[in-house]
C-alpha cells in the first residue's frame, strides 16, 4: 500500500506538466483546473436554483405578505404585512404561538428519539450482518422491505394495525399477552406519539442500515486481523475499528436523518389525517394546517421561515462541532 502513496503536493504541482512548452501548458492547466469543479457543479446548481432556491425565496417573500384566500389569485395585490406574521407566530402567550411552540417541542423530542433509535438499530444490524452467514442475503433484503413499500401503503398498514378495537397491536398486547387492563388508543390521545415514533423508526432505520452497510465495505479486513492479533476482542474491534471508520458516513447520515425526520410530512399525514392529535402534532403538519387548510399562506410561510432559521442554526452548530472534531483527529 505504501508504495502507491504519493505526496499530494507533488501530484498537484509537478506531476501533470511533464512535456514541452511548460508555460502554455501550465496556463491551460490552471484554467482547466479552476473551471472544472464549477463545470461539475453546474447541473446540480441549475436544478437547485430552479426547484429549490427560487421557490424558497418566493416563500420567504410570502412570509411578509398578508397572503390569505382573498389574495392567492393575484399575489401581487396582497398587502405587505411587515413582521406581523412572525409576531403572531412568536407570541407564545397567545394560542397560535403557544400551539406552534408546543408543536416545536413535540417535533424536537420526536426527532431526537427517532434519529437516535434508527441510527442505533441501523448500526447494530449492519455490524451484525457484516460477517457472512447462511441467510444473510435474505435477511438484508427483508430489512430493506420497509423502504421498498410506498409510504402510503406502509403507513396505512400501521394505522390499520394500531386501530383500537380491531388492530393487531391491541390484539397481541391485550387479548393475547394481557399486558394492558384495557385496550389503549394509539391513533388518538397521548399514545399517538409512541405510535408515530414506532412507524417513523420502522421506516427510517433501513436507510441507516443501508448507508452504514455501504460504509462498512470500505474497512479493510486487514485492520480487524491486525487488531485480533493484538488480542482485541470483538467489542474492542467494533469500538476501535468499526465505529471510527464509519465516522464520515455517520456525519452525513445523522444529519440526513435529522432533517428528514424533522420535516417529515407523509408519515403523520397518512397516519393521522389532516388533524394530528396534540401529542403527535409535528411541525410539518402544523404548518400544513396553518397554510393549506386555513389558506393563510403568509402565516404558514412565516412559520416555515422560523423553522428554516432554526434548522440552519442546528446544522451550522453541528457542522462546526463535527468539523472541529474532525480537525482535531487529523
Amino acid at each position: 500500500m505504501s508504495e502507491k502513496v504519493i505526496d499530494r503536493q507533488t501530484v498537484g504541482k509537478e506531476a501533470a506538466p511533464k512535456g514541452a512548452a511548460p508555460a502554455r501548458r501550465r496556463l491551460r492547466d490552471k484554467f482547466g483546473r479552476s473551471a472544472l469543479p464549477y463545470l461539475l457543479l453546474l447541473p446540480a446548481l441549475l436544478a437547485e436554483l430552479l426547484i429549490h432556491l427560487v421557490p424558497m425565496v418566493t416563500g420567504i417573500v410570502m412570509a411578509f405578505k398578508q397572503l390569505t384566500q382573498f389574495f392567492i389569485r393575484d399575489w401581487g395585490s396582497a398587502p405587505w404585512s411587515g413582521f406581523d406574521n412572525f409576531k403572531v407566530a412568536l407570541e407564545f402567550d397567545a394560542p397560535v404561538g403557544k400551539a406552534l411552540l408546543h408543536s416545536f417541542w413535540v417535533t424536537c423530542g420526536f426527532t431526537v428519539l427517532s434519529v437516535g433509535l434508527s441510527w442505533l438499530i441501523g448500526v447494530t444490524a449492519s455490524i451484525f450482518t457484516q460477517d457472512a452467514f447462511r441467510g444473510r442475503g435474505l435477511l438484508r433484503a427483508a430489512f430493506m422491505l420497509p423502504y421498498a413499500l410506498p409510504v402510503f401503503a406502509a403507513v396505512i398498514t400501521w394505522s390499520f394495525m394500531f386501530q383500537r378495537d380491531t388492530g393487531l397491536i391491541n390484539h397481541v398486547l391485550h387479548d393475547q399477552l394481557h399486558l394492558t387492563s384495557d385496550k389503549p388508543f394509539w391513533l388518538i390521545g397521548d399514545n399517538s406519539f409512541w405510535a408515530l415514533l414506532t412507524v417513523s423508526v420502522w421506516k427510517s432505520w433501513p436507510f441507516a442500515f443501508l448507508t452504514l452497510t455501504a460504509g462498512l465495505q470500505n474497512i479493510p479486513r486487514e485492520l480487524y486481523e491486525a487488531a485480533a492479533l493484538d488480542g482485541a476482542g470483538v467489542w474492542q474491534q467494533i469500538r476501535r475499528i468499526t465505529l471510527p471508520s464509519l465516522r464520515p458516513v455517520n456525519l452525513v447520515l445523522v444529519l440526513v436523518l435529522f432533517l428528514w425526520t424533522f420535516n417529515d410530512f407523509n408519515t403523520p399525514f397518512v397516519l393521522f389525517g389532516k388533524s394530528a392529535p396534540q401529542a403527535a402534532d409535528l411541525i410539518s403538519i402544523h404548518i400544513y394546517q396553518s397554510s393549506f387548510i386555513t389558506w393563510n399562506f403568509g402565516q404558514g410561510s412565516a412559520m416555515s421561515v422560523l423553522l428554516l432559521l432554526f434548522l440552519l442554526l442546528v446544522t451550522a452548530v453541528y457542522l462546526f462541532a463535527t468539523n472541529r472534531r474532525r480537525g482535531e483527529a487529523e
Partner: protein
Amino acid sequence: MINPPASFRWLRRVVLLVLAVFTLTPVAVMLSSSLKPLRDVQGPWRWIPSELTFRPYIDIWKTVPLAKYFTNSLIVAGSATALSVLIALLAGYAVSRYRFRGKKIFTITVLSTQMFPGILFLLPLFLIFVNIGNSTGIALYGSRGGLILTYLTFSLPFSIWMLAGYLDSIPRDLDEAAAVDGCGPIRTLVQIIVPAALPGIIAVAVYAFMTAWGEVLFASVMTNDQTRTLAVGLQGYATQTDVYWNQVMAASLVVSLPVVAGFLLLQRYLVAGLTAGAVK
C-alpha cells in the same frame, strides 16, 4: 469481525431475529389482509382469513388504474434516480477532490435547501412551472418531466453530500496513482472512483429512488389523471364510502414486488469484494 465468541453469536441471532420480526410484521399483516374478504378486514384482527380469497388481487386493477399509476411511478422514480445520481456524482466528486472558491457556500446552500418544509415551496414551485409553461411552451405542470425534475432535486443535496462522504473515504492514493498514469479527471472518475464507490452509489441511488417513489404531497398537486403516481394513486382505495383495506394491501404488495426484486439484485454490488480488491 475476527473470532467472535459464542456470546456474540448468540446476541447476534437474538437481535437479528427481533429486528426481523419488527420489520416483517406489517408485511405479514399486508399479506394476510390481502387474502381476506372485506368484512374480515373490517372486523377484529385475525391472522387466518375466515375465507381465503384472491379477489382483492383481481379487484385492485378495477378499483383504480393501478397499472397506469405503476408505470408512471417507475418512469418518474427511475428517471429521477438516474439523473440525480449522475448529477450528484459529478458534484460530489468536485466537492470531495477539488479545492475551489465558493465550495463552502455551495455545500451550505445546497444543504440548506433541505431544511425548507416542502409544503411551503409547493405553491411557488407550481407557479413557476405554470409560468415556464406559459412563456416557453414546455409543459412542466402535470407532466412526468416536471415531476422528474422536482424529485431529482429533492434527493440531490443529500446525494451530493453522501457521495462526497463516500468518496472521501476512498483513499486518494487511487486517483493520484491514476493521475500519474496519465488519466484525466473524468477518466479517473469513471474508471477508478465509480467502481470503488459503487456501494455508496447504490445506497444513494436507492435513497433517490425511494424519495421519488413515496412522495405524496407534490405528486398530488403536480399530476393529473394521466400522470398520477402510485404514492397518490393508492389513496384511491380509500374512497368516499369505504376503505378497501384488503385491496390497499394487495396492491401495495404487488407494486412492491418489482422494487424488492430490484433490491435483491443490487445487493450483490453492495457486498464487499469490489472495493476491497481495489484498495488492497
